[in-house]
């Protein structure tokens, strides 16, 4: 089950250097602005193929714009 996470925990995981950060918004919104170090995999194209570059054994943090 995915774990809800807050800002401080995101910062901690990124600081520890293990987490993989993924923005799931469309590419133009990602290009506009994104969290440092994030890669973009839009939700509509999120599948085994597009996530192949991610490490299954490391934590993954996903985010979009807000709660919507």
């Amino acid at each position, binding site marked *: *089950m*995915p*774990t*809800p*996470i*807050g*800002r401080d*925990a*995101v910062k901690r*995981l990124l600081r520890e250097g293990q*987490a993989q950060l*993924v*923005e*799931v*918004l469309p590419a133009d919104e*990602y*290009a*506009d*602005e*994104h*969290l*440092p170090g994030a890669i973009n995999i839009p*939700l509509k194209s*999120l*599948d*085994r193929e597009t*996530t192949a570059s*991610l490490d*299954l*054994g*490391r*934590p*993954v*943090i*996903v*985010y*979009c*714009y*807000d*709660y*919507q």
Partner: protein
Amino acid sequence: MSPRAAWRLESIGFGRVYDYTAGKADWGSFGLPLEGQRPSTTRVGAYTRGDVPTCAPTDRLQEVCDRVEAAGWDTCFVVNAQRVVLGRLGRSALSARRDVTAEEAMSAGPSTVRPSFELDKACARMHTQNLTGLPVTRSDGVLLGLLRRAGSD
């Protein structure tokens, strides 16, 4: 959107999936850096003056006035121990120099903006409401500074 993405990643086989549901709106509202094509100079945070004077609600107004005047400012924010904005002492409150506490003299609950707020919208708001500045706070109410109208025009 991100909860669906998180579940999909789990179904693909990722074992540790975290969902930062508050997302980049929350990140930006705390003044944390964002990367991308939209330059930071289009945001309020780039023009926020972090040296705006502050005082505690129990401080005596006359002492606050002396301190604010010496620092060359004409406004001061009343904040609690966590630096959450409680109110503002504007020109009229500061010039009155009454023998009261800052809390008694302040205007409570000033309108605030986040550092990620678009600068042109903040400027428009200041023009429309004839404001000389807008306090900039994080989404938890902690004061980051002041966007001055003269400095942002």
